[in-house]
């Protein structure tokens, strides 16, 4: 099952945070990790804020059709 790009980004962010927290990076690397982390956090945050509404489908005998929510 493929993951949401959101989840992948969040996982990447977690890895970056842990890497930076290890304190084993040069200053250059650290600044790069930091910048990359902040931009990932921003992407994730934006994605969450901009999500609109769930898409609901019905699995008919014919296949997927729109689900009537009313």
């Amino acid at each position, binding site marked *: 099952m*493929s993951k949401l790009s*959101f989840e992948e980004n969040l996982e990447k962010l977690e890895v970056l945070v842990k890497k930076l927290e290890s304190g084993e990076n040069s200053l250059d690397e650290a600044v790069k990790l930091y910048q990359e982390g902040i931009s990932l*956090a921003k992407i994730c945050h934006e994605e969450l804020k901009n999500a609109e509404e769930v898409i609901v489908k019905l699995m008919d005998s014919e296949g997927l059709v729109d689900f009537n*929510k009313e």
Partner: protein
Amino acid sequence: MVRQYLTVTALNRYLKYKFDNDQELSSILLKAEISNFKRHSRGHLYLTLKDDTSQVSAIMFVSNTKVLNFNPKDGDKVIVEGYVSIYEAYGTYQIYIQKMDLDGVGDLYLAYEKLKDDLSKKGYFAEEHKQKLPCFPKTVGVITSPTGAAVRDIINVINNRFPMTSIIVYPALVQGVNAKESIKLQIEKANQQGLVDVLIIGRGGGSIEDLWAFNEEIVARAIYDSKIPVISAVGHETDFTISDFVSDVRASTPSHAAELVVKNYRDVIGEILTYQERLELALLNLYNNYLKHYKQIVNRNVLKNPMRLIQTKELAYANLLDRLSMVSPVNIINNKKEKVDILIKQIRSEFKYLLKDRQNTYQNLIEKLELTNPLNIMKKGYAIVKQDGMIKKHYTEILKDKDLVIALNGGEVTTKIIAMEGEHNE
């Protein structure tokens, strides 16, 4: 012959004695329908039990009514446990009810207990067979009635918590004789199609008969075999079904299932902000560590007081010369002196190299951390001496007949050299 006449009381007492000593009548099980139901003010229940052609009076004393799990009313089909006896005052026989259940429910309950026991022994409820729910399901499958309240509750809650999610509703009958087959087929279909990351199977509240499909073995089997994690959400908080036990996670209601299946995006934003704070803190810590390290390097003697190294070497050299002059003829002294001169030149050039290397490191650190500025040093009263635009770091680099430029705090001064008086004898 004198005829013996009995009193009515004696007759009734005799009959009561007969009834009470009859094995069959002292414990009977009866299937019947209730009519003429009355609740006495003291709590005793008076009723008639009947079938298509016959009827019999019955009484249930208040002490026995405590364990009733339904409210009896006319027309209820019941199964009854009790004994038959005679009410002497009226000479009527009646059934004294000790236990009464709705007919059918008892059977269902027994079937439920038996299946639960069987499946438990087969390992259907084993903890090690349970699958973990995905953290962020892309698509949630819902197997339920497409027109029920349950599906609407689930959609609303997911929409409110994590609207990035998609939902696929697999329509199923959730009550009636065909429900079990319908639910089973949809679980299998969802697994074959592989479009969803997690399944919610359930329906809203109802009577035990309404929820019965979720107590069927073929439904339990389908849930057990599902490769997709399953959340069971049947009825209300207090309803427990076989599906609840066999599924990976039990939700008390359909809304609760929706809460379990997706995180609240507000909480996730909180997580992201925490990560951001951790990044900032980690970078700051690292920076502080480098700063500390840098200070340690700068404070080393060789950088703080470079002349001391040369002085130490020269002292050793002078000492050596003294010792040589004391023990050796002049030519040997001269010979040795040449060698020592070479040696000291080597020491000097090595030291210069070392010093330069340290200064480079020092310079790099300064640039990297942007901490110091030569202007700051000048503010403390130090000056830089230049000739021909080059910074002069040593007396020996100074040429007497050229202008000297002194850069100090606030500007530069160009001067002529009047005298030179170095300690050096090169």
